[in-house]
């Protein structure tokens, strides 16, 4: 019998971090470009999750009475949520924040305005849906466990699944020690090679679409997985020196992939389009950008629309991951999301993404390392990490870049 361990906590942390990242990137865009420390971001996440519920669970929320036959699948509901949340994002900008910007409202005023918006959004949800917990109507996703046994002669991998109370073995294979070391070495070599290949030709004007470091890590991981899949040998026995279990599901993998794709698309917009250039210029200095012909109002509108899209994404993924949507979910996410943004330095969406992964991992690893009685302090861990970092580096890990 194997138990879950640090590797499982890391994998779970990656999933948590991805959900936080979806919220944190949007918040950091709003923070740096629109210059609003948006305390309504959590409630924007909530309302995004509820948009999906409107079409996914019309029996619970009868907002669209004409919907024929009831529920649509979560994917379609998610798409609906994205569209609706984007429209709401535009609404926030046009109805509220553009007006306050034209009055040159200071940071404190913007904080309080976003607080008022948070109050409105949260109570809008309570007004329409009430305070009960609702979950999405989806297919049941079973966990798949990857049991790793490190024995004297190598590594054994078992794919298992809990079916009707018993653990069923889905597949078993292994790697001898020399192969294991070889695969690891190859992965490290490929990763480092990719990094060197991308970074040697760089001068100070080069703008990488994906930074060499990220590409290097991705290359290494891809090599590791490809070789590990291709070179499966016989099992090496299960009387292990060390064994651990990693529990994942297609849900977890889907969440990480969806967020990664969203991050890549945003990256594409920011770096490869004129619009993105305008956004980056506005983030640096709004007045200078305007002088150079950037239509700042349009940029701000786009920023709020993107923030709306990302909050809906975060909301739907968080609701799906937890199998539970309630009016409080956004507020519980707000603290880790803010922690991630501040940790990464508020001016950079890339820093926010990195901060989010770090916060997510520290939350789940922290819960694993702490005694079980302290598991309820999951959010508190994110905050203690944040306060610790702020005490040492008051501008966040990656500073004000």
């Amino acid at each position, binding site marked *: 019998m194997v138990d879950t361990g640090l590797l499982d906590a890391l994998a779970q942390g990656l999933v948590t971090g991805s959900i936080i990242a979806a919220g944190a990137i949007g918040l950091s865009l709003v923070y740096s470009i629109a210059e609003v*420390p948006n*305390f309504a971001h959590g409630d924007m996440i909530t309302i995004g999750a509820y948009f999906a519920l409107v079409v996914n669970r019309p029996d619970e929320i009868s907002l669209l009475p004409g919907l024929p036959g009831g529920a649509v699948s979560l994917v379609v509901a998610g798409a609906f949520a994205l569209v609706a949340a984007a429209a709401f994002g535009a609404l926030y900008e046009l109805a*509220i924040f553009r*007006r*306050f910007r034209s*009055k040159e*409202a200071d*940071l*404190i*005023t913007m*904080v*309080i*305005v976003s*607080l*008022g*918006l*948070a*109050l*409105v959004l*949260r*109570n*809008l949800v*309570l*007004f329409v849906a*009430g*305070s009960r917990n609702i979950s999405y109507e989806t297919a049941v996703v079973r966990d798949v466990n990857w049991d790793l046994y490190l024995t004297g002669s190598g590594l054994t991998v078992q794919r298992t699944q809990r079916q009707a109370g018993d653990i069923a073995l889905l597949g078993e294979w292994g790697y001898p020690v020399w192969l294991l070391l070889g695969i690891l070495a190859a992965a490290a070599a490929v990763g480092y090679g990719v990094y060197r290949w991308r970074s040697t030709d760089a001068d100070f004007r080069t703008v990488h679409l994906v930074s060499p470091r990220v590409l290097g890590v991705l290359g290494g991981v891809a090599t590791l997985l490809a070789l590990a899949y291709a070179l499966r040998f016989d099992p090496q026995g299960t009387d292990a020196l060390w064994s651990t279990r990693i529990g994942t599901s297609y849900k977890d993998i889907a969440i990480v992939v969806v967020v990664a794709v969203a991050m890549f698309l945003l990256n594409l917009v920011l770096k490869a389009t004129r619009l993105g250039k305008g956004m980056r210029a506005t983030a640096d200095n709004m007045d200078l950008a305007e002088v150079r012909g950037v239509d700042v109002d349009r940029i701000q509108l786009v920023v709020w629309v993107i923030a709306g899209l990302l909050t809906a994404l975060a909301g739907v993924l968080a609701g799906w991951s937890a199998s539970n949507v309630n009016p409080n979910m956004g*507020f519980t996410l707000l*603290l880790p999301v*803010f*922690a991630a943004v*501040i940790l990464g330095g508020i001016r950079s969406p890339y820093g926010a993404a990195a901060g989010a992964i770090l916060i997510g991992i520290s939350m789940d690893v922290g819960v694993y390392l702490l005694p079980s009685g302290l598991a*309820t*302090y999951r*959010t*508190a861990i994110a*905050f203690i990490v*944040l*306060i610790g970092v*702020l*005490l040492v580096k*008051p501008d966040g890990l990656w500073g004000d870049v």
Partner: protein
Amino acid sequence: MALADFAVSLLTFVAIYGLFALGLNLKFGFTGLIDFGHVAYFMIGGYVTAVLTMPAQVTGYDGLGGYALPELLAVVPGGDVLGWLLGVAGGMVAAALVSLLVGVPTLRLREDYLAITALGIATILNEVVRNETWLFNGPFGIRTVHQPASAAFPLGLGSFILNLVVFGGLSVLVIAYAGYRVGSYVKDVDTTGAALGLASVLVLGGSIGALTQGGPLLFVGVGLAVAGVAVLREAVRRSIEPERTLALVVALAAAAWYFLQPLLAASNPTVTLQTNVMFLFDPVAGPNGGLDYDRFFMLLSLAFLAGGYWWCQRTINSPYGRVLRAVRDDEDVPRALGKETFRYKIQALLFGSALAGAAGSLYTIHLGFISPDQFGAMITFFAFASVIIGGTANNAGVVLGTAVFWAINSGTQFLNDYFPSEYAVKLAAARLIFIGVLLIVILYYRPEGILGEQDYDIRLPGDEPAPSRDDTAAAPGGDADD
């Protein structure tokens, strides 16, 4: 429930949250610290006072204490109240100490970072109280809250007539004084404003009357309501001083609600009116009538509010308060003048938190029990809304804002009677949506709040002879507050 009972409960709420908001105003309005974790000190004050004054060995309570201060001091005359006051002092000190621990690391951060870290710390503290049963009994809370001097109530002075004259007369005097103050303020209203204001009150009153009748009159009521709001809008737009017109409308509506409505609606008009007018006198409390505990507690809370208000005014109108405002406006200026600004910020945090702690002590008594659920982050946001609606950096405005907030939030509870009971959640949400919109609208059209920043009666150096205004402008700290 008679209207007077409801008004007493509302006033108690306003007094408690007013004290809480005064503490926030000291931090946010005068010193510029966005403390989104203000509710934590409210919670700490409430819990510490409750534990200090609670008898030891209460069944169903597994936390620290109780330390039974009132019983320890019972040998001294008035020891019951003295022990409770010591408990309140303990709650205030505990709140201030915790805010010191929070403030030392966080107050060096940027204002928006401070807001989110304060919110985070308050959430964590709430989680700690909820999860650690050994501390304050966790989610089950405290059900035995000590009520100071509760043995003396209902308080009677002797014969029925004496009680009637003393307590009833006192009530009438209070109402008369309030009427005099409001009257002397609205006396100067212009004729257009007065006429239109009066008309709007009449139309709105008619609308409420029609609405309560139900049936086909419902549509008449809705129509009248729309017309009344239009007239009110016109009154505010056309009058020379909209504040006075609005005050007239509010005063007339309140008077009609308090004095006329019981005559029309209640089954027993004279008794209801008598209860409303002599709101301090309860004829059925005790053998000969008297003052019941709810009324006493309202007076006690109002006394605390008055004390807090007086203290805030003194602080703000002193040279010390001027430094606080300078820290808010531009921290570099007082620092250049040799002020240790960090120390001032810490002190503002300590004092504001101590006021929140005192408010928390009163809150526990008003509710009769406490649990972590009552101290969510929403309470802080309500206080922010109150401060901003009434007037940031204005102590009187903060009390007014709290009154407006709670008048909207619980003063409209009577509307619940006209809807099916399952709509209660929706109505509560609708009120808060309205308050959120009001907050944004006020920030846009009148960012300084209803009353705006208050005047400060400080004599600036070189102010007395004032031969030329240039001297004052150049004087240190001369930030135009004369």
